[in-house]
């Protein structure tokens, strides 16, 4: 119990203090920390939510057909394919992110190919761009999208699809009116499980990007551990959490009303 609440309480307490590491901090309801944080790191906040949002959508689009195939077509090999989906999680997070350094390297095959087909200019790079950071985030959190999706697709009763077909629904209509709505819980769970950690991530921006791609996580991390500016780091953490909570509520609202009218 104490484990969960006490740290957050101290974080809030810290976020309202003023002072420096050398002189010590005093608690004086310094709400200005919040305004300063929002003013100074506005860009990083926008970037965090933008990158996390794109990564979540791409992860959904990439994993949906894959998981659909496993749930409906893979037959008795389902378990093997599921292991393959979670396999990336068994490679240390940092190491699998570093592997993208090898893959996207300037002399690597991907950049070479993209230069050949003129998607990238002759000096074009992937590393140190937003594309690399978003790709890294997408890759790292894809299994969190795929697993809940799989669970919801797997539970769909095949007889419902047969019924749709009997009632002269085309394959496409059956998918849009039966499969897709029934997999909605999986889509909701998957988006949350992907978006929340992605919005707080700083590893991909640090390893695959440059300070121009830095997200809020990078700022919090360096303020806490390098600059030792605890109050403003704590304020940033709280804003991040609050924004995620607001996002959650808006999302829940949207999903809920859609279901009511649908």
């Amino acid at each position, binding site marked *: 119990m104490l*484990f969960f609440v006490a740290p957050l309480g*101290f974080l809030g307490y810290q976020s309202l203090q003023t002072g420096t590491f050398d002189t010590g901090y005093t608690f004086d309801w310094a709400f200005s920390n919040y305004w300063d944080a929002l003013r100074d790191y506005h860009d990083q906040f926008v970037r965090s939510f933008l990158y996390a949002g794109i990564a979540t959508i791409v992860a959904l689009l990439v994993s949906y057909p*894959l998981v659909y195939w496993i749930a409906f077509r893979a037959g008795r090999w389902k378990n093997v394919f599921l292991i393959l989906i979670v396999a990336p999680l068994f*490679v240390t997070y940092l*190491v*699998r992110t*570093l592997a993208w350094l090898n893959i996207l390297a300037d002399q690597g095959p991907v950049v070479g190919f993209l230069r050949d087909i003129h998607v990238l200019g002759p000096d074009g790079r992937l590393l140190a761009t937003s594309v690399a950071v978003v790709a890294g985030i997408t*890759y790292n959190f894809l299994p969190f999208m795929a697993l809940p999706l799989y669970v919801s697709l797997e539970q769909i009763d095949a007889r419902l699809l047969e019924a749709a077909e009997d009632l002269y629904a085309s394959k496409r209509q059956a998918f849009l009116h039966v499969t897709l709505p029934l997999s909605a819980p999986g889509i909701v769970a998957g988006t949350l499980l992907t978006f*929340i950690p992605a919005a707080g991530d700083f590893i991909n921006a640090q390893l695959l990007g440059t300070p121009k791609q830095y997200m809020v996580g990078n700022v919090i*991390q360096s303020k806490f551990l390098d600059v030792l500016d605890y109050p403003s780091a704590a304020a940033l953490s709280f804003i991040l959490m609050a924004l995620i909570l607001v996002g959650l509520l808006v999302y829940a609202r949207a999903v809920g009303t859609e279901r009511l009218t649908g």
Partner: protein
Amino acid sequence: MRWVKRHILPAYALLAFCYLLLPIAVVILFSFNAPSGRFNYVWEGFTFDNWVNWDAPPGIQSAVGKSLEIGLLSTIVATVLGTLLALAIVRHQFRGRGATNMLIFLPMSTPEIVLGASLLTLFLNRQIVTGFGTIFIAHVMFIVSYVVVTVKARLIDFDRHLEEAAMDLGANEWVTFRKVTLPLLAPAILSAALLGFALSIDDFVITYFVSGPTQTFPLFVWGAARVAVPPQVNVIASAIFLVAVLVMIGNVLWGLRARRARESMPAAVPLPETLPTTEPA
């Protein structure tokens, strides 16, 4: 056209799997690389040296040791705590039960960086020196949530008649718990523990905040990434990956065997093929 339609989904699945597995292949491949300089980015030749001398880079051996130590300790403690907590939430009505239920999800629905930051401020404000102990506390905290969720799921569709039957047969509460409840929960507890251990070994963000001078394997990688990552890092990551895959395969096979055993249960108690008849001899 029809042919294309039928094969488009499997082809897509194949591509997607390539995308998922490519980085893993790269990690394993580059564990056999023989880089001439300090950077392990370009393939330069095959060697087993990195595997044989996996502990060559200074600090890597103690970092791996620390990771295993923290992983084992925090998993054991968190599994016991989490199982008891799950039992309390599902079976007992107590004040604050709803709140406990909510709070269990807090570590799972908050970005790791906020958890790490808040733990660090707690330790700083209480003047607790960060190091092995604080990493241990932090890991117990996040593993507990996963244990509670996994064990709770199992407890909810638990057939309590089995416990009542044991009690009716004269077992006291402790014996019932040990001989009936615990064995039935065992698969859930085991998978929660495995998951917890995997999360602990892999955790970077929270550990980074509360580690102080202590270095685990992910922290070693982070430090190395600022200069040059030695191929031995790939060796350790590949080894962890192989062990995890073996455990997963073992788990699936075990599940299959258990299912088969259950299916063949009636055969284990053979019914007489023909009823004994009184035939004139």
